[in-house]
Structures are given as C-alpha cells and as structure tokens.
C-alpha cells in the first residue's frame, strides 16, 4: 500500500505541497508522483537509508538527561519528504529578509551610538532601558560596516491564507544551519534520481559564504586572517554544529581557555607552536559569558579581556555583543516601524500581528483573550516559557495572567496562527504536520541569504512546536523553478 495523495487531507490548513483538492501543487507534482510510485518497502528503504546516513554522518544534537546521567547525543529526526518553495516566492522572501536585517543592524548601531530613533520617539526609550539584552558596555562602538548581527536566523511561518510572516529574529547565536546542510547531503544520497528531474538550488555554499563574511571583518587586512569558532564545549546542545562549521570553514574550534588577551590587548590562541594571533571570533557563547571582566565574573567559558580587545578594534566578534537587543520579542513589534525609519521603505515581509502587554489597552485585550492567543516572554528562546492559550488549561492561563500583570514589559501576545503543513511520513503514509522555516542571513561587506533554510517540523500530530528540544524534526528545503 503506497501513499495515495487523494487520501491526504489538508484539514483547512495551507499545505506546502498539496492543494485542498488533494492534487499536488505544480512545483511539487514530480516529487509527489515519485513518492506515490514507491511501494511500502521502497519507502521504508529510503527512510532507513536516511537514518543510517544520519548515524554515520554523526548528525546529532545534545540533550540533557537526568536519567542517563548527563548529556547524550541524539540523532535529530529527519523527514524524507522535502518542503518545496518556488523561485519566485523565494526571491521575494530573500529580498524581504535582506531589507529586514539591514534595518535591524542600522537600528542596533544607532542604539549603541547616537540613539536617534529614541530621540525621534519611534521606539520608546523605556523599552531599551528595561531590555535585558541591551549592553551599556557596547556604547560608542562602531563595528565594521556598522554590522552587529553578522549571522541572523529569522523564523518564518505561513498562515492559512498563504501569507509568509516573520515570527521572530534570532540575532544572538542562532543555530540550525548545519542541519540545513546535512539534510541536503542526506537527500542527495537517498533521492539522487530526483535531483536529475528537478533543478533545485544548491545550499552548499554557506560555509564559504560564512568564511567570506567573517574574513571581511578582520581587523588585520591580510590574505588569510585567523578565524576561530568559540564554543562553550562538548556539553552544549549545538556542539555538533560548532564543530561542523569550524571543519567546513577550515577554522580552529576553540574553547575559552584556549584564548588569552595579551598586554597589547590582542587576542591569542595557545597552540603547540606558541601563541598565535586571532583576528575574528565566530562566537557561539552567549554575551554574558563572553568575558568575565566585562560581564559574568564567574564565567569560565569566556576570555578575560575580550571586550577590551574588541573595543580597541583588535579582534572582530560575530555576532557583536549586544546585538540581541533587537531580537527581544517586544522590540520585534516595532520592526516594521524600524524598517520605515531607517530605509524609508515598506516592509516586504509582514510581522505577525502582535499585542504589547506594556500598553494598557493591548494588555487588557490580551488578558481578556488568553484562550485565543499565544503569549511569549521577551527574551526566551527555544520555545520555553510561552503560553499557547487555546491549548492551555484554565489554571495555566490564570498563572500567565499573573505573570503578565506583574511584569507587562516582559510579554507580548500573538493570535495563534494556523501554521502551514507539509506531508510527513508517518508509518507508511503521509500525514500533514505543521512547520516553519529558518533561513540564515549573513551580513558584513555584503549580504547573503541561504537558499531556503532549515525547515523544522512538529512531528506530533496537531502540534505547532517545532523546536528540536521539544519533539521537532526537520526536512530538506527545496527552492525550485515555478
């Protein structure tokens, strides 16, 4: 019994591959036909092959497990049916992302310098004063090209009517790009025939684009600047990615104690050949752990004096400390205004309509409609600390109402979007599962957007939580001809 698309029901959601009529979209017709022609055992072979590839390629993420006595590596669930987006739509999204990230970088640079946008009352000063991600230590710094968020991962979702919204921007240490690259490598192994029928835009140039992006901000203008990836270490959930990107770029993977700041306020790494100067640090350590001298004095993940070296312009940090001020979920609601203010353009990609709990009328609306809304704290990531109103119990909603009343600045709410779905292999049939998309945007002397990005899929039926730490999986993302 193979997959029969006419038995697939989209349940009123927008499905990325299948129309409400049960017919595949034009861009997906070849793959749907191909999959429907596979017998159960052939489908299972493909599935098994993908799992084997994941194991042998060592694609893992780390989770903390009390039972198993510490952290363990888990293979990240992968679904073999790709998500498909057409060239035309992608070009629009790409332009929208470039516009958005450009404006966000101008915004961050302004906040740490003239603060014109606050003086002009476009963004309330209070929001910045209260922000947990604003770093006063960064005032007056002008990083190269005015770029603070060199690597940005923005989460996109599609609503029932097909509109693509930006759900959030991740400007600190966004992760997931290695899975995007590995997903494609797996698909090439198991569906190589399909790559002959489709012209699928490649994703492989990301590591070299990342290298170029980082090399462009090197303080020393040398042919081969020393670029390192700074990881918190093997117990970090994204260690696989840190190690993967370092390998792909040919950069050294370092931990805090490998680096030291010299008397000359330059950064050196300890090698068997002696101390060796470092030009660019792609840091995957949070701001507050970067430098015990400037931030958390107990941090052993960071490098003492790193902020000093960075402020003097002797080393480049990507992303720059303090960039997270703009991925605050409350600041998020101002992004359309921020785009208009700096670029004098209308946003190409819309925000999800949002209610700010700090404004009384909006707060009252939120408190009265908790059963319809998703409430998010300003500074959490990974899907933690949020309330999905329609699915929560009355007691949970009451708890959240109290949280909001106590600290309104920390919360915003959005209507529960009917996230789009895509067919996902469940046993031997395809069922719709909700998904989102995280493209990555690189900025320094030029801007680059990944072709597609990481599609994350909620593997539990009806769930909209796609995070890897909470039962999410991923799919390959194909940008194809219309």
């Amino acid at each position, binding site marked *: 019994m193979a997959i029969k698309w006419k038995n697939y029901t989209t349940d009123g959601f927008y499905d990325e591959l299948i129309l409400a009529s049960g017919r595949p979209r034009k861009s997906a017709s070849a793959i749907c036909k191909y999959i429907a022609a596979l017998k159960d055992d052939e489908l299972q072979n493909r599935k098994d092959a993908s799992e084997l590839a994941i194991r042998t390629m*060592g694609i893992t993420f780390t989770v903390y497990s009390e039972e198993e006595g510490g952290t363990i590596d888990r293979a990240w669930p992968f679904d073999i049916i790709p998500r498909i987006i057409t060239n035309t739509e992608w070009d629009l999204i790409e332009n929208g992302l470039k516009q958005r990230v450009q404006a966000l970088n101008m915004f961050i640079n302004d906040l740490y310098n003239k603060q014109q946008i606050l003086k002009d009352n476009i963004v309330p000063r209070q929001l910045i004063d209260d922000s947990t991600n604003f770093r006063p230590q960064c005032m007056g710094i002008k990083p190269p090209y005015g770029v603070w968020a060199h690597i940005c991962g923005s989460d996109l979702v599609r609503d029932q009517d097909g509109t693509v919204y930006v759900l959030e921007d991740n400007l600190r240490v966004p992760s997931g790009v290695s899975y995007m690259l590995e997903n494609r490598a797996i698909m090439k192994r198991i569906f190589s025939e399909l790559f002959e029928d489709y012209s699928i835009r490649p994703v492989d140039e990301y590591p070299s684009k990342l290298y170029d992006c980082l090399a462009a901000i090197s303080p020393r203008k040398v042919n081969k600047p020393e670029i390192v990836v700074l990881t918190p*270490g*093997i*117990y970090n959930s994204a260690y696989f990615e840190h*190690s993967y990107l*370092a*390998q792909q770029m040919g950069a*050294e*993977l*370092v*931990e*805090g*104690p*490998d680096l*030291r*700041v*010299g*008397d*000359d306020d*330059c950064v*050196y*790494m*300890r*090698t*068997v*050949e*002696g*101390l060796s*100067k470092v030009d660019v640090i792609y840091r995957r350590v949070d701001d507050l752990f970067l430098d015990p*001298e400037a931030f958390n004095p107990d941090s*052993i993940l960071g490098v*003492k*004096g790193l902020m000093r070296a960075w402020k003097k312009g002797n080393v480049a940090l990507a992303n720059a400390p303090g960039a997270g001020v703009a991925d605050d979920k409350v600041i998020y609601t101002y992004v359309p205004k921020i785009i208009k203010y700096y670029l004098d353009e209308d946003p190409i990609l819309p925000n999800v309509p949002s209610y700010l709990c700090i404004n009384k009328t909006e707060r009252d609306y939120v408190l009265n409609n908790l059963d319809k809304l998703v409430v998010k704290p300003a500074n959490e990531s990974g899907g933690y600390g949020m309330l999905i109103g329609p699915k929560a119990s009355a007691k949970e909603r009451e708890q959240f109402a109290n949280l909001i009343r106590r600290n309104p600045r920390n919360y915003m709410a959005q209507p529960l979007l009917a996230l789009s779905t895509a067919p996902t292999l469940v046993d031997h049939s395809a069922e719709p599962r909700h998904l989102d998309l995280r493209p990555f945007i690189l900025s320094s002397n030029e801007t680059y957007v990944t072709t597609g990005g990481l599609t994350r899929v909620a593997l539990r039926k009806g769930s909209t939580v796609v995070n890897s730490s909470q039962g999410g999986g991923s799919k390959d993302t194909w940008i194809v001809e219309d």
Partner: protein
Amino acid sequence: MLSRVAERIYWMARYVERAENTARIINVNTNLLLDLPKKVTLGWQPLIDITGIKKLYNEHYPEVNERNVVKFLIADTRNFGSLINSLNAARENGRTIRDVIPREGWEKVNDLYLYTKNQLPQALSRRNRYDFLGHIINSTQGITGLLAGTMTHNFGYDFLRIGRNLERADMTSRIIDVRSANLLPEESEDLPPYETIQWMSVLQSLSAYQNYRQQVQTRVQRGEVLKYLLQDIYFPRAFNHCIREVQGSLKNLPRHMGPIRQLNLIIRSVETTQFDNMSKKALHRYIDNLQLQLAKLHKAISTTYFSIQDEKPTKAKKKKSKVTKKSGGKAKPSASAVSHSAGSAN
C-alpha cells in the same frame, strides 16, 4: 594545533597505555603464582608497589591478598590508577577531541570503557580474569593500530606517540624496579630454578620473552634481562626504545629544544650505564632517578606545548604586566580535562 587539543591527545594515549600495562601486570602475576611453590610467598604486594599506590591501598584495605589487590587495580574508583579509572580518563579526554581523531578511534575507546564497566563483576574471579584482561590488551593494541592506520600523522599523532611511549617507558622501569628489588629479594641458593621463572615473568609481562630468546639467545638471567629491557633499541617495550620513539616524535614538533635536551640526558644515561653487576640497591637508586628524569621530561613537554600561559606573544612589544599575569592564570579546567600523572605518586 591548539595546546588543549594536543594535551588531550597526549593524555588519552597515556591512559590507554596505562590501562594496558595494568592489565599486563595482573595477568602475569596471576600466572606466575601458579608456577611457584607454596613456600615462596611473593603474593600481590609487588603490584601495589609497581603502581605506586601503597599508601592509598593501605587506607582502604586491611590486608594484601589476591582478591583485594585485583579489585583495587581493576575496579576500585578510589584508585586513580585503576583500570576502570584509566579507561574513563582516556574516554573523557577522547570525547573532547572527537573531531580531531578518527571517529572509529573514539568509538573504540568508548566501547572499551563500556565493556570494562559491564564486565567488572566477572573480571574479579580468577577463572574469567585471563579472558577479560586479554580483551583489554587486545583492544588497546587495536586502538593503537587503528590510530596508526587512520589518523593523520601530523602534530596530533606525534603527541599521541609521545604520550604512549612515555607511559610505556615509565611502566617498564617500574616493573624492573619492583621485580628486582621487592619480588626477588633473596636470589636464594635453595631456589635457583625459580629465579629463572621470576625473570621470565618479568619478560612475559612485557610480551618480551619470545623476542628476548630470539635476540639475546642466552638463558634468562638477571644481567641480560636488565640490559635487554633497559637498553635495547628494537624491542617496543624496552625503555630505550620508548624514549627514542619520543625523541623521534619530538623532532617533528616545533620548539623542541627544551624537551629534547632533557631527553638526551636520559638516553645517554641509560646507554652508558653498566647493568650487568649492578647491586639491587644501586639498581633501585638508579631507577628511582630515571623516574625522576621522566617526570622532568613530562614537565618540559607540558610547559613547552600545553601550558604556555605566560610566554610573551611573538609580536607583542610590551613586557608582561600585572594584569596579564593575572589574566593568564589557568582557568578552571573543564569537567572533561582529566589529566594527572601517576609518575609522581611514589
């Protein structure tokens, strides 16, 4: 290559080698006891002395007997040099350099640790012990071979070889020391056949018996065995051979002057000393000093390559200031950096 990575490769190799050596000495002692008459009460004390853990042992066990000693050497986590602890330390060092060594190398180290942990209860009985220890020795040899055949022979591989050979040299010297001083105190006239057996056991614990017979071709006797195990340059567990291997690896590394100088002292001393008629006391003193020299060599390697905290950057202009001295202070080691030397445990 990062100093941290080099250091962890070095320690991983040392711990793997230490596990193998521990397995070897237990195995051979078990066999030796079967051959000796009841009135020769050599027992298990020498193994405690070889591994330099006498004090620690006495704190935890009231008497020296087979059961206690074997348990302490194989399974006791309070003994930092126990087999299980060595393998755990090898694994923890290996875990952090999984992207530097070939994947199979890490998997083999991990497997060996898990095997050992699971087999501990069975390993304590004399009946199963031989197979268990044989498996350890085979697996560590397998790890060495696998890394030789799959790891890039760059600096990292040099550190691997340095770690392995230093540990091996260290253990060979310990075995000679203890076997000649403690285990064979009375080369008593009334037990001549057993003197031979005892020296044979020394050779066997180093897998050297067959090689010795081929190369030396005389009967097994003290002077020849000492010369062979200390001075031979061909046999892979002979002290001199191990040290020369370290020399070869060091020569591939940059900035090796300090360690090489120390190493040459050791080679000259071993090669020019007359062991034939050296008294027990003199031999003991000599090997004591040799161990000291090995510890110095480790220190020279460590300060040159692993902990270059306070060295002036090559291009820096200013001199050291208070601030950097402080900032150069060693950070708390991460949970996984497992490194200590049993060489200083005497």
